[in-house]
């Protein structure tokens, strides 16, 4: 049997991104090609089937995390891609950028403890019918690390209720494990149309047994699967 096609998943690099190579390596091991794309570009590579905004400290987290990065030239292309139904995943700083760009609901604020947290967390997968969780089993929690100073996701109570009803609260920290004080223990959300996702935990740091958990493969592998399907569709 021949090897399945390798979908192209663009990894955007902002000044101050620092997880782009880890994401690239993880995606390539999971069967994608993952070119890194500099933030100054105005277009995504041809045949891009998905985009990942990686973690880091874009623009030194000046003003608010993600507030400057979302004005980068490449973000116009990412916004158009998302508006056309393209798959976009933001991890940590990438999640912050997507909320600042209003591609995802809510906002990420300094951790309630004011301390940087760096540790494994246990996550509940609320839905396995999204492009980001297709390989997950909602009965089985994921073990994936976080490392952030500003991961306290917030939405006002009305919006929170609406997002919960709409199934947009995709990942939640297990009870008693919330590392940052986020509303409703939210660790990751999807947009209303289900093609844009952001999460604070780092699946790219949980893909090799050497580092403990390999549960990150379930998230990134789901994205590779979904990207492969969307790449097969006629444009």
């Amino acid at each position: 049997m021949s090897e399945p096609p390798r979908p192209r998943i663009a990894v955007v690099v902002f000044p101050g991104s620092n997880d782009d190579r880890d994401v690239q390596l993880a995606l390539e091991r999971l069967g994608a090609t993952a070119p890194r794309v500099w933030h100054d570009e105005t277009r995504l590579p041809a045949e891009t089937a998905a985009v990942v905004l990686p973690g880091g400290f874009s623009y030194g987290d000046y003003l608010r995390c993600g507030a400057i990065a979302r004005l980068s030239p490449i973000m116009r292309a990412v916004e158009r891609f998302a508006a056309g139904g393209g798959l976009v995943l933001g991890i940590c700083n990438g999640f912050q950028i997507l909320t600042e760009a209003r591609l995802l609901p809510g906002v990420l604020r300094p951790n309630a403890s004011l301390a940087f947290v760096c540790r494994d967390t246990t996550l509940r997968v609320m839905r396995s019918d999204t492009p980001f969780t297709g390989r997950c089993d909602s009965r089985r929690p994921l073990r994936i690390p976080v490392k952030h100073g500003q991961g306290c996701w917030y939405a006002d109570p009305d919006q929170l209720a609406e997002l919960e009803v709409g199934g947009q609260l995709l990942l939640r920290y297990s009870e008693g494990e919330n590392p940052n004080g986020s509303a409703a223990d939210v660790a990751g959300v999807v947009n209303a149309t289900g093609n844009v996702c952001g999460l604070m935990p780092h699946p790219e740091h949980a893909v090799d047994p050497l580092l403990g958990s390999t549960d990150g493969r379930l998230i990134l592998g789901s994205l590779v699967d979904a990207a492969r399907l969307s790449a097969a569709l006629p444009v």
Partner: protein
Amino acid sequence: MLVRPKTGILDPQGQAVESSLRHLGFAVDAARVGRVVDLELDVADADEARRQLERMCEQLLANPLIESYEIELRPGA
């Protein structure tokens, strides 16, 4: 521009400042920590300055979901 967390929004920095001030013996009921952005603008009048500053706050300097802002104008030299 004065940008600060909206009332009702958890402000951990403000809480830390409040408790530190109490440790120093000051009677503080509440503290909120925001930021000041000083800008110099070359504009015809105060109304124009205010219009521009409001747009800057809405588009970049404040996040309207969690922050409020105030504009203070001073004529330049």
